[in-house]
């Protein structure tokens, strides 16, 4: 019970003090999981991250689930996961409530319209770094083009396209058109 509580509070803290999730969380994980509690080594954390990236879901959450599972099985996995999402739920619920209440004000409208500009830039940056990480050869470029085209011009659901992309990955890797190592 004590360990479950520790898992919850430690991941709560990591969720509370990192902005952005993903790799932004690594320094906090380093301090809490590796140094303070000794729940995992650095290599293990890197493994969890690598696997968290190619499995469904949020990478930081997947890492929390891994650490919790190895400490205390399924209850541990659940405790750590609930811990890492709790701060988000609390904070966002408050902010979403505020924005909903004040969104009718002209001043807030102007502010939110301005924020759209920052979001453009942030998404542009994110896309650029995704591009650099993912598109290294012609095969990958083709898959990118197909998925972009299908998303814009067809109504096929993203879930179905994800499955198709996985199949395409296997077929093209076997045919030698995609680097997978």
């Amino acid at each position, binding site marked *: 019970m004590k360990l479950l509580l520790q898992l919850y509070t430690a991941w709560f803290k990591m969720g509370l003090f990192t*902005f*952005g*999730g*993903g790799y932004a969380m690594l320094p906090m994980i380093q301090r809490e999981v590796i140094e303070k509690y000794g729940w995992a080594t650095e290599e293990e954390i890197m493994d969890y991250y*690598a*696997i968290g990236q*190619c*499995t*469904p*879901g*949020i*990478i*930081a*959450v*997947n890492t929390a689930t*891994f650490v919790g*599972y190895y400490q205390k099985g399924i209850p541990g*996995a659940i405790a750590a996961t609930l811990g890492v*999402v709790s*701060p*988000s*739920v609390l*904070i*966002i*619920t408050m*902010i*979403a409530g505020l924005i*909903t209440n004040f969104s009718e004000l002209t001043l807030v409208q*102007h502010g939110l319209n*301005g*924020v*759209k*500009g*920052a*979001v*453009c*830039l*942030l*998404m542009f940056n994110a896309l650029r770094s*995704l591009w650099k990480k*993912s598109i290294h050869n012609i095969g*990958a*470029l083709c*898959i*990118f*083009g*197909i*998925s*972009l085209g299908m*998303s*814009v011009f067809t109504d096929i659901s993203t*879930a179905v*396209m*994800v499955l198709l*992309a996985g199949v395409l*990955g*296997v077929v*093209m890797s076997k045919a030698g058109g*995609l680097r*997978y190592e």
Partner: protein
Amino acid sequence: MSNFWLLLTEFFKTGLFAVGGGLATIPFLREMSAEYGWFTVETLSTMIAVSESTPGPIGVNMATYVGYMTAGPAGGIGATLSLVAPSVIIICIIANYLQKFKEAKAVKMIFAGLKPAVVGFVMAACLDIFISALLYKNSFDRIWQQKDTGVLGYAAESVNWKAILLLAVLFGMQKGIKKLHPIVLILVSAAGGILLGL
């Protein structure tokens, strides 16, 4: 199906198919907005901004936000738990075969296909966001519908020049200041929006 159950199943689906972290959830959110009208593209922009400037993983923040907007505080909690449920189940299974999974060729091949595809999905979802920020007419589809009367002329008329100016200033800031935190960018953009009366 009531909105609440629909919300839970949609987020479970998102958690199951969004591979590659928080940003990969954006195409699913755009799909929800188009299909159920729970929120607009404008609100999606606000959600991204709030999620980037508050603590916690972005994907989780957005799930709470959408859930709250659709079904109140219970919706926020429900959407978040539904989003993480599939990955908790999957990770608990994989954790028993960590080494095998890490070295499995099939996994690497599947991932090699998914990685570039996710860039395409996210880019498509962002097109709507870019268009809603920079043009007065807010959807790509509506511009596309004007293809007979001339897409370019229609698009030129609908450019929001104030928004372009603001974006240029933000871009300049980003170039000029190293390690600029997203929150600074978001605060400056909000102030800019108010000053310009966007």
